[in-house]
């Protein structure tokens, strides 16, 4: 029987389990215009959305794979072999009791209902293409906060949705944002009214259960003037032998004086291509902060960005990437300064294990006409084995007067002597490794909300256990 697992308890196979598929809607294998019509029909899209998808499909076809600058491994994605839409219905349930048993068991095993009770203001749980559960605490809803799936958002709140949808990240931003725009399904739509400070985090959990599948959720969050929100997302998938694709688009808007924090802790299995586009716009005095923890996947390409559009806007990316043996974490940050006195901060820590590879790509842009902008970039890499690899590609263009940038990078290696020293104190090799890794990320993790630092520490322990003998 399924064992109930507390989120704080060590469970060796965190995400590595799957239940038989019971989908009633299946777009089949491969991607054509017909696939898009199928998705639009099922979702009862308004015409403008169908149009948007079809245009995006054309853009997707016209864009080359970014293999010229990124990994050649992208060539292993065969778009014709992927299934683009799978669901057992399009309406999420408001009560866990109403969620089908097998799906509910999946989320119980991942500890989601328990976390909701403990510390969340609302939860959305997506299973393959659609949210199966979505609920916001009554008190939070009564403040006017909207927290629904993207489909419900575009249908029931078009006046807010349409204004921002596809504006932060245009369809043609890259091949995968175009793909997402063509076939998107699921994801969250959130609106926080002016001045409302949501005390507890809202959380979404994305679960891939099916093989050969592509998950393309689309999230749009708007924090109106002076509001505050923390949003957290978790992701897992079982380990299949075939490639699975996760390609999300996340757009954030922080209006004047708003504070928006977006936290990701993903723990993908080693067959997942995770190619995600995430960007936020920070208006005057607003702050957008990405906390991004990438564990697992075969290849992750993700560079959360902030466009600082208003005076004194702040952008921040704090990221941790753990590249296990045979994995490639190609991550980084983009900071686009577009107003005076804007400040950005990037702290990136990566760990490479075995033949794992971590790549940092940064982009910091401060144009000539701006004054008194600041950027701080720190990237630290830790190599566990002599076969581990790390590369850094910082691209910093700063012009203008009174603008300053600071850039620091370091590479260190866990030494055999260090491990021996810890083993001499009674720690196993895996415990010693995970302690070193936790020590390496410690000062960064301390800035994360408690629940997530505990979760992250646990995932690092699991990863290290798995990578040592």
């Amino acid at each position, binding site marked *: 029987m399924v064992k109930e697992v507390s989120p704080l308890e060590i469970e060796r196979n965190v995400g590595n389990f799957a239940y038989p598929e019971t989908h009633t809607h299946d777009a089949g294998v491969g991607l054509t215009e017909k696939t898009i019509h199928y998705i639009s029909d099922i979702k009862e899209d308004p015409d403008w959305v169908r149009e948007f998808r079809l245009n995006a499909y054309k853009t997707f076809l016209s864009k080359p794979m970014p293999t010229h600058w990124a990994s050649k491994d992208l060539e292993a994605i065969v778009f014709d072999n992927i299934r683009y839409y799978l669901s057992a219905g399009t309406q999420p349930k408001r009560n866990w009791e109403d969620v089908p048993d097998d799906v509910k068991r999946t989320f119980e095993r991942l500890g989601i209902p328990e976390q909701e009770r403990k510390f969340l203001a609302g939860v959305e749980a997506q299973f393959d293409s659609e949210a199966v559960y979505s609920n916001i605490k009554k008190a939070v809803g009564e403040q006017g906060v909207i927290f629904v799936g993207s489909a419900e958002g575009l249908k029931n709140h078009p006046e807010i949705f349409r204004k921002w949808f596809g504006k932060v990240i245009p369809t043609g931003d890259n091949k995968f944002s175009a793909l997402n725009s063509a076939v998107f399904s699921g994801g969250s739509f959130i609106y926080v009214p002016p001045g409302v400070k949501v005390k507890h985090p809202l959380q979404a959990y994305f679960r891939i259960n099916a093989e050969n599948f592509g998950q393309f959720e689309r999230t749009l969050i708007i924090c109106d003037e002076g509001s505050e929100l923390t949003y957290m997302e978790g992701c897992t998938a079982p380990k299949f032998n075939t490639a699975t694709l996760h390609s999300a688009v996340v757009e954030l808007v922080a209006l004047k004086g708003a504070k928006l924090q977006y936290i990701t802790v993903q723990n993908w299995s080693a067959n997942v291509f995770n190619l995600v586009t995430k960007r936020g716009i920070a208006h005057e005095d607003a702050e957008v902060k990405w906390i991004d923890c990438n564990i697992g996947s075969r290849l992750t390409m993700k560079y959360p960005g902030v466009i600082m559009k208003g005076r004194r806007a702040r952008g921040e990316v704090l990221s941790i990437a753990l590249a296990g043996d045979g994995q490639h974490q190609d991550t980084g940050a983009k900071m686009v300064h577009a107003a005076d006195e804007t400040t950005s901060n990037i702290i990136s820590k990566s760990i490479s294990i075995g033949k794992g590879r971590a790549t940092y790509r940064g982009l910091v842009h401060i144009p000539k006409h701006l004054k008194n902008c600041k950027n701080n970039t720190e990237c630290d890499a830790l190599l566990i084995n002599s076969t581990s690899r790390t590369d850094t590609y910082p691209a910093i263009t700063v012009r203008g007067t009174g603008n300053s940038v600071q850039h620091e990078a370091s590479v260190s290696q866990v030494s055999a002597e*260090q491990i*021996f020293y810890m083993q001499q*104190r009674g720690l196993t090799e895996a415990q010693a490794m995970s302690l070193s890794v936790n020590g390496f990320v*410690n000062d960064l993790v301390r800035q994360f909300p408690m629940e997530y630092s505990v979760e992250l520490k646990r995932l690092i322990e699991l990863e290290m256990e798995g990578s040592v003998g």
Partner: protein
Amino acid sequence: MNRLSISNLRVSIAEQEIIRGLSLAVPKGEVHAIMGPNGSGKSTLAKVLAGHPDYKVTMGEVLMDGEDILGLAPDERARKGLFLAFQYPSEIPGVTIANFLRAAVQARLPEGEELEATDYYARLYEKMDLLEMDRSFTSRSVNEGFSGGEKKRNEILQLAMLEPKYAVLDETDSGLDIDALKVVANGVNSMRGPNRGILVITHYQRLLDYIVPDHVHVMVQGRIVRSGGKELALELEEKGYEGYDEVKDEVSEPAMV
């Protein structure tokens, strides 16, 4: 049975033999000292006992309370009660002393048993007081940016917290001024007792004024060439290691205790 016993041990690294037929036994309740010139293989012996993977044992055995430990991983030996205070302790960036020791103490508990935080801190503070260590040490990263003396003190703090059956202290006196030396010696002396055997490695006799050994062994070129009581340390202090070079060639059988 109740001893750490090394017999006829031979150890090489990079094709070079460093320990060349060494025998020695440290019974519980006793403090033994190994003295010897630089490069005689003292640290090699210490690390081999602890299971350092770089060294190759080509012959001999090491028994801890009758059990052969040479086949055990370093952490298994440690959990069975062997402790090494390193001559050059490693730095572990980002890991605080409190968290490190906590993990080490936790590793010794039976599975499923959680260390009680308040008890742990009470004990930690008690040992720190004994070693005259400031409380702020608990939140510093292990050995990172420590002076030589602080590192040695930290080793003895770990010894006191982990309460091993057998402790090997490698050059614990180096880097200590005389006041610190007294404090550290006091810490070690507080660990003496009928249930613990201690092997002190040093090349100065200074430490042995404060940690008075029951037996002293002289190690030269990978062998014990002479053993005696504590007065042997004084003799070495006076005469140095000269003359032992010749002795070594006469010793066909390793000295036994």
